[in-house]
């Protein structure tokens, strides 16, 4: 096997890595945003429940949660390792994303909400048209961080057998006895993925930025 084949075998795992990320990140965002809205606007009981959710899902190592969710899901529904692993990762991420969205919502000053009510907008309208648009912009930097974390944590699903980058590196490393090259290659690919994502999100942040005179 030549060098090119070696590298491309590992690189072909990128599809799975990206796939896991593209499933986990948005599902984490969806769940996280809903929970964050409940946390901030849902009243005391909701806030306590959300706090509990956050404490538990952020206090347990992601790999432990991944295993629990994966095995629990596998008992009930017949999902492939890819989907079970991705959604599990998404659920893990939702707790962190909830905190990010919550932080952003709280950073949009409560006065903005008051000003919105003052012109007759309902609470729901005020949140939707005034608070959320501003919160989204505030959330992008920490969210960009979370995206990078998910790309890296996607390597955990190798333990579930998903043929992503790390798994492929392991397989080809074992068969060729060239572990160092295999894992270094994997590292480079991950690095490029993380770098590209951060760069893209940074561009997005600039695009969405509200114009102001410094």
């Amino acid at each position, binding site marked *: 096997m030549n060098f090119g084949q070696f590298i491309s075998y590992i690189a072909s795992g990128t599809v799975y890595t990206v796939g896991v990320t593209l499933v986990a990140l948005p599902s984490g965002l969806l769940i996280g945003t809903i929970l964050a809205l409940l946390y901030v606007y849902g009243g005391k009981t909701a806030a306590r429940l959300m706090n509990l959710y956050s*404490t*538990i899902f952020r*206090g*347990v*190592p*992601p*790999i*432990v*949660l991944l*295993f*629990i969710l994966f*095995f*629990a899901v596998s*008992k009930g529904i017949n999902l492939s390792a890819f989907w079970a692993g991705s959604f599990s990762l998404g659920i893990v991420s939702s707790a962190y994303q909830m905190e990010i969205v919550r932080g952003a919502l709280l950073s949009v000053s409560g006065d903005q909400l008051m000003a919105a009510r003052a012109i007759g907008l309902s609470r729901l309208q005020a949140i939707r048209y005034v608070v959320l648009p501003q919160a989204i912009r505030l959330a992008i930097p920490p969210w960009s961080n979370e995206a*990078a974390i998910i790309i*890296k*944590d996607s*390597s*955990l699903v*190798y*333990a579930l057998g998903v043929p992503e980058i*790390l798994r492929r*590196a*392991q397989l080809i*490393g074992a068969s060729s006895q*060239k*572990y*160092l*090259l*295999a*894992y*270094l290659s*994997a*590292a480079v690919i*991950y*690095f490029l993925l*993380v*770098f590209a994502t951060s760069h893209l999100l940074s561009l997005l942040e600039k695009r969405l930025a509200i114009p102001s005179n410094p």
Partner: protein
Amino acid sequence: MLTWLGYFGRFGQNFLRGAGITLELTAVGLAIGFVLGLLLALARCFGPKWLQKLAGAYIAIFRGTPLLVQLFIIYYGLPEIGIAFSQSTAAYLALGLNSAAYQAEYLRGSINAIGAAQMQAGRAIGLSKWQAIGYVILPQALRLALPSWSNEPISLLKTTAIVFLIAVQDLMAEGKRAATTTFDFVGAYLAIAVVYLLMVFALDALLKFIERKTAIPGMDIETQR
């Protein structure tokens, strides 16, 4: 199938032993990470340009790649060029080198927050650059960094869980052992999850205690955790 509570009765001792290894991994990783992280932060803040770039590259690489890959490179890859570590050592190294990159950023942030003004004040009374760093900047910066830095020990505690993949007998490994013994994967890992949660709570409480005890009166430190 054991209810997960029953796991503590049957595997309690194993879990305890595993938890001890986990804490040890956390402590060593944190220590290595702190020393190296501090050096990196100082290099970035006060070093010559080339050193700044080097430190920056280190941080970018270790934060831009998965810890698992770093671990595998150290444990499985390095022996090919003659450097072989035991499982534990490889784990300590990987955790420490990785943590250093994150700690460097926390420390760099607070050193910058203390600011050039304090440096000028120190130089103005005749301190050399390194004396100013040691006696003026760092004492303040370290205290300032504490609230956000406190995320790191907790994060590290959770991160250590993956070293079971190179057969280090930490808490996670004990969990796996219990799971493969009873074939109740969900229950076993749930029990492990509870132990991790307890450890995180305890660590969190300890860190908050330290924060309170070392706060400089009057210094407005925003606790952002």
